[in-house]
C-alpha cells in the first residue's frame, strides 16, 4: 500500500536535510510501528506523508497504491485516503468542530464523486463515534480543539479518523499526553479500525502504546533512515536496552 523509496527530504527554508535515504514498505492490513530517538525524523516523515510544504523532497519517491503522491497537495492526499493524526492538533478559533467535521467529510465524499451526507445521517455518525471514544458530544459544538485538554485533542483526532475512514492512517505520537485510561480508549479506537484493506503506521517513542496497539512490524528510524526492521519483539528489545546497541550495530 505504501512504498517509500530512497527518500531524501530537507526543511525548505533552511535546507537542513532530515530524511536521508529512507526505505519503508507497509502492506494493506499491516500495523507498522516507527520508533526512534528524538530528532531521528519521525515527525518529519509524518508531515512529509501528509504533504506539508515546509519540507522539500529532493530525491526518491513515495508511492501510495503504486501512485506517486509527491505532487499532490494535502487535501488531495486526504481525499485518497491518507490520514495523519497530529502530535499537536491545531486549535482553530471560530471554526465549530461540527462544521469542520461536516465540511471535511463532504469534501472527501465530493472528491470521490459521492453525494454529501444528509444532516441527520451526519449527526448520527458523529454521535456514535464520539460515544465509543467516550467524548462529550457538547464538546463538539466548541471551535476545533479550542479549550480541549491534551487528551481530548488526541481523542478528537481519533474521532476524525473514525469518521473519515482513511485507508492509510499515520499516528504521530498519539500516546503523548494521554493518561492510562485515555490511552486504552484511544487504542481501542485505533484497533477497531484495523482491517485487511487498511494500513496503520504508529509513530511512537515508547513501547507502552504498542502494548495496546500490537504492531506487525517495527522499524527503527535514526538520522533519517530505517536502520533496523523486525517484528514486535524489536520494540521490547528497545524498551529493555535502549537505542544505543542498535545504533552501534548499524554504524
Amino acid at each position, binding site marked *: 500500500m505504501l512504498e517509500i523509496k530512497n527518500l531524501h527530504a530537507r526543511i525548505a527554508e533552511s535546507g537542513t536535510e532530515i530524511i536521508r535515504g529512507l526505505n519503508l514498505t507497509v502492506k494493506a492490513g499491516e500495523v507498522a510501528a516507527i520508533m526512534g530517538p528524538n530528532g531521528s525524523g519521525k515527525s518529519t516523515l509524518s508531515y512529509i506523508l*501528509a*504533504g*506539508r*510544504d515546509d519540507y522539500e523532497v529532493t530525491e526518491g519517491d513515495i508511492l501510495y497504491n503504486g501512485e506517486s503522491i509527491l505532487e499532490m*497537495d*494535502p*487535501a488531495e*492526499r*486526504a*481525499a485518497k485516503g491518507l*490520514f*495523519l493524526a*497530529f502530535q499537536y*492538533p*491545531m486549535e*482553530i*478559533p*471560530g*471554526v465549530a468542530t461540527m*462544521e*469542520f467535521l461536516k*465540511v*471535511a467529510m463532504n*469534501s*472527501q465524499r465530493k*472528491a470521490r464523486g459521492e453525494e454529501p451526507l444528509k444532516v441527520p445521517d451526519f449527526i448520527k455518525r458523529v454521535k456514535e463515534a464520539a460515544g465509543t471514544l467516550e467524548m462529550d458530544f457538547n464538546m463538539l459544538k466548541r*471551535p476545533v480543539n479550542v479549550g480541549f485538554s491534551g487528551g481530548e485533542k488526541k481523542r478528537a483526532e481519533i474521532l*476524525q479518523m473514525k469518521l*473519515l475512514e482513511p485507508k492509510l492512517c499515520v499516528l504521530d505520537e498519539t500516546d503523548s499526553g494521554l493518561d492510562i485510561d485515555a490511552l486504552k480508549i484511544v487504542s481501542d479506537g485505533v484497533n477497531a479500525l484495523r482491517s485487511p484493506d487498511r494500513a496503520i503506521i504508529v509513530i511512537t517513542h515508547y513501547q507502552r502504546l504498542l502494548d495496546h496497539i500490537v504492531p506487525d512490524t517495527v522499524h527503527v528510524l535514526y538520522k533519517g533512515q530505517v536502520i533496523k526492521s523486525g517484528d514486535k519483539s524489536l520494540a521490547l528489545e528497545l524498551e529493555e536496552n535502549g537505542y544505543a546497541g542498535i545504533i552501534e550495530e548499524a554504524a
Partner: protein
Amino acid sequence: MNMRAEIQRTPAEAAIIDAFGERLSLLPGDGAVMVKRDDAIEQIKAGLPTRRVESWHYTDLRRLLASVPAFDASAAAKTIAPLLEGSSLLSIVNGVSAATPSVEGVTFQRLGDKLVDGSYAPALVTYGSDDAVGALNTAFVADGYFVDIEDGAQVEKPIELQNIQAGGQVHVRLPVRVGAGAKATIVERQTGEGAGLVSSVSQLLLGDDAEVLWLIVQDQPETATHLAQFKAELGKNAKLTLFVMNAGGKLVRQEVIVKATGEGADFKLRGVNLLAGDCHVDVTMVLDHAVPHTSSTEVVRNVVTGRAKGVFQGRINVHQIAQKTDARMACNTLLLSDDGEFSTKPELEIFADDVACGHGATVTEIDRNHLFYLMARGIDEKSARGLLVRAFLAEVIEELEDETVVEPLEELLNSWFAAHA
C-alpha cells in the same frame, strides 16, 4: 499676503460649494438652521481635510474625493427587506423620508419637519474644524428621522432606519433618544444602487439604565462615497453595543464618537470591515470616558483583498476624574493580497491614574498551520481559506449571541464572500 486664498479648490470642493448655492432655496430650515448651514459651508470653503490634518492622516479626503455628483431628484431607489425579521421599517429613499409607522412607546418624526420649525437647529453642531462629515451634512441635510423612545419602553421589534440611495447626493440625519431604562435594537442600513455621495449623521442619546444594540450595516455599491458619523452619549449604567459592518463603497469614512458621561456606563464596539477591489474604508473612533467607573471594549476585524485600503483609528480619552475606567481595544487584520493595505492607529490619552486600559493591533496572513490542518482533512485549499477567513470574522459576530441577529449578519458575510472570494 494671505496664503490660504491662494489654495486652489479641487473640482469636488468647487462642486460642493456651487451645489450649496443652487440648493439653498430648496433646503428646509428656519433662520437658526440656515445660520448653521452657512457656518458649515464656510468650513468647507476653507478646504476639505488633507493628510496633514491629524484625524484624516490616512484618509486624505481632499485628494480621495475626486468628484461629487449633482443632486438627482429623478434617481429611483427602492426599499429593501429589513435585515432582522419583524423589524419596524423606516426608510429614506433618495434622501426623502416616508410616513412613519406606529410603535408603542416610540415617537417618530420626519426630520425635515424638525428642520422647518427649527427645533433641530441646536443639534447641528460640528466637533471641530476637522469635522468635514459633520459640516457637509449640516450644510445639506434635508431629511431623516427623529426617534424618541420613552422612558422604560421595552421595544420588542427592532427598528430599522434604512437609507437607500440611487445616485446623486443624499444627506440625512438619524437622531435617536432612548429614555431611562428603555431597551431597543436599532439597525442603521446604508445601501443603494447608485454612484452617490451620501452623508449620514446618527445621534444617540442613551438615558440612565437604557440598553441599546445598534447595528450599522453599510454595503453601498463600489462606486459610492459614504461619509458617516455615529455620535452617542451614555447615561448612568447605560449599555450600548455598536456593531459596524462595512461591506461596500468606494470611499467610506465611518466616524464613531462616543462619550460615556454617566457612571457605570458600558460601551462595546464590534466591527467587521470587508475590503475588496480598490475601495478605501476608514473607521475612526473617538471615545471619551468622562466620569469614573465606566468601561469599554472595542474589537475590529478586517479582511483586505485586492488593492483595497483600510484604516482604523481608535482614540480613547480617559478624563482626569474618570478613575476606575476599564478600556480594551483590539484591531486585527487579515491581509489576503500583496496589494492591499491596512493602517491602524490606536491612541490612549489617559489623565486618570487608577485605570485599566490596553490596546493591541495585528496584521497577519492566514495561519499556515491552520490551513495545513484543514487541508490534511481533505478540505481543498480554496474552501479551507474561506473557512478560516469566515471564522476570523464570525468570532466577532457570534459575540452578539442572539441568533436572530447573528444569522442575518453571517448571511451578509457569506454573500460578500460569494461575490469577492
